């Protein structure tokens, strides 16, 4: 497959692995922020190709994992209501709420449907004018313009029965929160290539400057990730801290302006709670008031929701890179992909599931 196979080429992987070994003289901890990259690292066993001195820390960049428990419970309540068709990306189906997940409310008779794109959710709304169709709009900056377009399109087509339950998180404020934590041991970052494809990388310059930490925008294939690690390590060894772009075949400095305009037509930046981490200021998107008609949280009354995270789940520490999944007592025992206790065991991009499948 063009543009995939060459970035999985074993010769290139080996070249990079040798180069990294050659330049590494000290211990460095590098965080890949994005769950997609964590998944690739585990799948291709990239840690084996790195010198022992390089420690990869797996970051919180899995939107499925960080969607707050309250939001999942809200989704479950709305999905169970009369006359509702609840649509969602497949990865959200098995994320555990306080008691159930979407799959189990579906088994109990709720009309829950998986869609590939928010545009497919719109089609469901057009085909079912007598039902209320709700789309679970989760995601990082990568997914938010697509979710925004579904709302813009619903308005343009005059659809009265479409709304979204929005839960959007943003990467730069999360990096800021991680680096502001005094106990953080992160020396450098791989920034998430697909987030930057949309947003560009201007937002990362102030972070590099403020925390004197190298950030390299990186892709998702083995060659991309190793090249990203090579560039971060080289900076650290040479005592530099800069912003570099490994993923220049799709990422530009300013990103995709049209997609950004779509986002800011529908959403505005707000404080956001991250599951397992807590509230991070200005780290999410909420639906603007003039689109309130399309905001499922405004349309459906779900009452008061009180939540408790399972006590033995240490997802918060895992998501902040402070502990590895294996350090959790429940890992692979009470908690496994069939019966996840916490979200990082559900999504294939969650660190716990990635370790379970590939370690």
């Amino acid at each position, binding site marked *: 497959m063009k543009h995939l196979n060459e970035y999985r080429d074993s010769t290139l992987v080996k070249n990079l692995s040798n180069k990294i070994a050659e330049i590494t003289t000290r211990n460095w901890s590098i965080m890949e922020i994005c769950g997609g990259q964590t998944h690739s690292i585990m799948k291709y066993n990239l840690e084996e190709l790195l010198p022992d001195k390089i420690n990869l820390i797996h970051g919180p960049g899995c939107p499925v994992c960080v969607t707050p428990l309250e939001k999942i419970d809200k989704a479950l309540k709305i999905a169970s209501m009369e006359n509702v068709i609840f649509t969602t990306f497949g990865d959200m189906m098995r994320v555990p709420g306080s008691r159930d997940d979407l799959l189990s409310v579906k088994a109990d008779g709720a009309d829950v449907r998986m869609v*590939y794109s928010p545009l497919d959710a719109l089609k469901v709304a057009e085909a079912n004018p007598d039902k209320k169709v709700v789309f679970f709009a989760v*995601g990082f900056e990568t997914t938010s313009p697509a979710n925004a377009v579904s709302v813009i399109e619903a308005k343009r087509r005059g659809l009265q029965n479409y709304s979204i339950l929005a839960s959007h998180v943003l990467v730069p404020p999360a990096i800021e929160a991680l680096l502001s934590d005094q106990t953080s041991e992160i020396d450098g970052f791989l920034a998430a290539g697909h987030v930057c494809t949309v947003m560009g990388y201007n937002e990362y310059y102030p972070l590099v400057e403020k925390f004197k930490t190298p950030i390299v925008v990186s892709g998702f294939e083995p060659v991309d990730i190793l090249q990203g690690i090579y560039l971060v390590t080289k900076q650290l060894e040479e005592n530099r801290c800069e912003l570099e772009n490994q993923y220049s075949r799709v990422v530009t400095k300013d990103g995709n302006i049209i997609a950004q305009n779509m986002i800011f037509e529908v959403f505005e930046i707000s404080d956001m709670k991250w599951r397992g981490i807590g509230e991070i200021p200005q780290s999410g998107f909420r639906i603007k008031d003039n689109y309130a008609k399309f905001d499922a949280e405004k349309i459906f009354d779900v009452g008061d929701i009180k939540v408790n995270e399972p006590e033995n789940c240490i997802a918060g520490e895992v998501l902040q890179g402070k502990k590895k999944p294996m350090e959790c007592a429940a890992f692979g025992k009470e908690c496994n992909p069939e019966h996840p206790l916490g979200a990082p065991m559900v999504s294939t991009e969650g660190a716990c599931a990635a370790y379970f499948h590939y370690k």
Partner: protein
Amino acid sequence: MCLAIPGKIISINDNDPDLIMAKVSFAGVTKDICLQWIDDPKVGEYVLAHVGFALNKIDEEDANETIKLLREMGDIN
């Protein structure tokens, strides 16, 4: 979740100027992808697609150049 994959534009449907759609082939599997955010898309070009939307074109020259440099990296040693 943030998975985005490269695909080749097979045909473009611009009947609706507010929602330009395309058939995009991902290693033989064809999907309907929205090209609304892509500047001047052309049949035969590669895009990076995510949840039914093309996020950006893939810069062929840049991609080839990176691969070339990485190959040379091995030759030098």
